[in-house]
């Protein structure tokens, strides 16, 4: 798994590549800790290159989302591949997250 971060104004974007599972959550967790330290914490996770997420990764994203909301921000997801979208639908986490088809869309949704 690889991660690459960038900023669009005050919005922090993280692009993740590869499997996103319990063996790989450490670095994303560290990045989210830093990102959530800001207020407002506006975060976009771009999962375009992610082909698998497990429950640890889901738990990490839920944790990030809750902390961003506490910091007057939010955590948006974008560009989910079909297998990943299915996992979100099966666990109904698609109801908990704002999910966008493209990164630009997610970024502009912060307004």
């Amino acid at each position, binding site marked *: 798994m690889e991660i690459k971060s960038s900023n669009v104004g005050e919005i922090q974007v993280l692009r993740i590549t590869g499997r996103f599972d319990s063996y790989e959550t450490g670095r994303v967790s560290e990045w989210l800790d830093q990102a959530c330290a800001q207020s407002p914490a506006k975060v976009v996770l771009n999962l375009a290159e992610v082909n698998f997420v497990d429950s640890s990764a*889901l*738990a990490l994203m*839920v944790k990030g989302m809750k902390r961003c909301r506490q910091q007057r921000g939010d955590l948006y997801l974008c560009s989910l591949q079909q297998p990943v979208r299915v996992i979100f639908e099966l*666990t*109904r986490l698609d109801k908990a997250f704002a999910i966008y088809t493209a990164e630009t869309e997610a970024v502009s949704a912060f307004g």
Partner: protein
Amino acid sequence: MTTARLLLDLVNSRRDPVARMAAAWLGAGAQAFALADSGGLLAWWPNSSPPPLSGALVAPVSINGRPVGELRVFGVNGDHSQARLKADALLLSQIGSMETELNEMTGELIDNQDQLLALYDLTQSMRSQLEVVDVLHTLAQSAGRLLKATAAAAVLIERDSPLLIHYPQPFLDDQTLLNLLAQCRISGNHLLLNAGDPVNPLPTGTAGAIFEPLYVRGQIKAGLCLLRDTPFGSPDHKLARAICDQGAAAIETALLYQETLAQARLQTEAELAKNVQLRLLPQTLPHVNGLDMAAASLPASVVGGDFYDCQQHPGEPFMFAVGDVTGKGMPAALLMAMTRTLLRSKTRSLHKASPADILGSVNDDMYDDFSEVSMFATVFVGQYASHENLLYYANAGHSPVIYSPAGGEAVLLQADGTALGVLPLNLCENHALYFYPGDVLVAATDGFSEARNLAGELFGYDRLLRLVESLATQSAQSIANTLFQTMLDYSAGHGQDDDQTLVVIKGV
């Protein structure tokens, strides 16, 4: 040893050659022959009367270059006699030097042997010690005695708290000892200190100190400090080094033993936790009219986050649940126990509660706790009303739940609510489906759909659906057994990634 004693010792130990030397002089016409040092006459020949006080030829004797006295001969004169006397003195000097050297070597040999024996004793006694404190105590005590120190101390920094042992009494305060250890860590070397050292002042009456570092697991984590009323030299350092090497090995052994012990204790605790958790799962499944049932749970680690539960209270429909707390191990197990208990109490206390009511209420109670530890739990709750052949259920983010109607195609019963602990309000709804003889419901956890083979390929939902479909004519127990066995075969050589739990119910 004083120089005066040296010549006396020589005369005493080599009386014969000296007496022959004297006899030769007397035979050659000398009146008397004597040996003297700064303290006066030591021996004389003929021994009937002391030699006169003056009128002697004199030749100095020195041992190892140091003057120790002289030979005196009376009643002879001339250059020849003077030269002969000088030669005799030289001969005696050489004998003396060799004698001294031999004594020193013998002394050293005895010392070395003593030290070897003491080191051997030290090694033996340390080998039997399994407490770090005891090892440090032996180290300070033995090194103190072997190096004739007035005081000794051993210090060890393991984890964060330092351990200090003094022998026989504390002589330097703890902070000073820790400072010395810190200096050793920086330089990587021992410290030899003398009285009047500006950086590390020594207590009054102390002439020298030595601080030897101990390498424990490749790092300087301990040290030995010795104080003495005479300065320490290079041989002392070598001996201290040898003792410290033994000490370091003994400390490593003791640490390893302590760790093994702690690990065994943890293992026992984990086993206890496992037993407690297994007891939380239903020990037997109730008999429910119209249903054939099987259930089992196989944690990936000693304890897991998966659970299942069944309850049947008089006048209430049969209730069952399958859940999965995110993560593995002890944290997941603790939350699993909480979730399962709350589900039970809600089922009992909320009269005629629907599956969605129960899940919503558990979420209300546990949302804050789940958020606090950044976890959540997916839960499927089913209720079976046998008189109406109806299965009511609500699904909070749980998958896979597979419904395989008799003779029909197996389908996933997808969740409509998020997992417990994700959102403050849980919005899952109640659903109902007819459940007739031959219909099968398998509520499993993602340890089944996400089992991986050696190539890393997931077992996946499709394969799981087809498998359940193909097994649907068998008994609930047989379906459960085959599902577990299939996962075991599929992930052969790869190991179990996640907890695997399932409840199988079949209409009969």
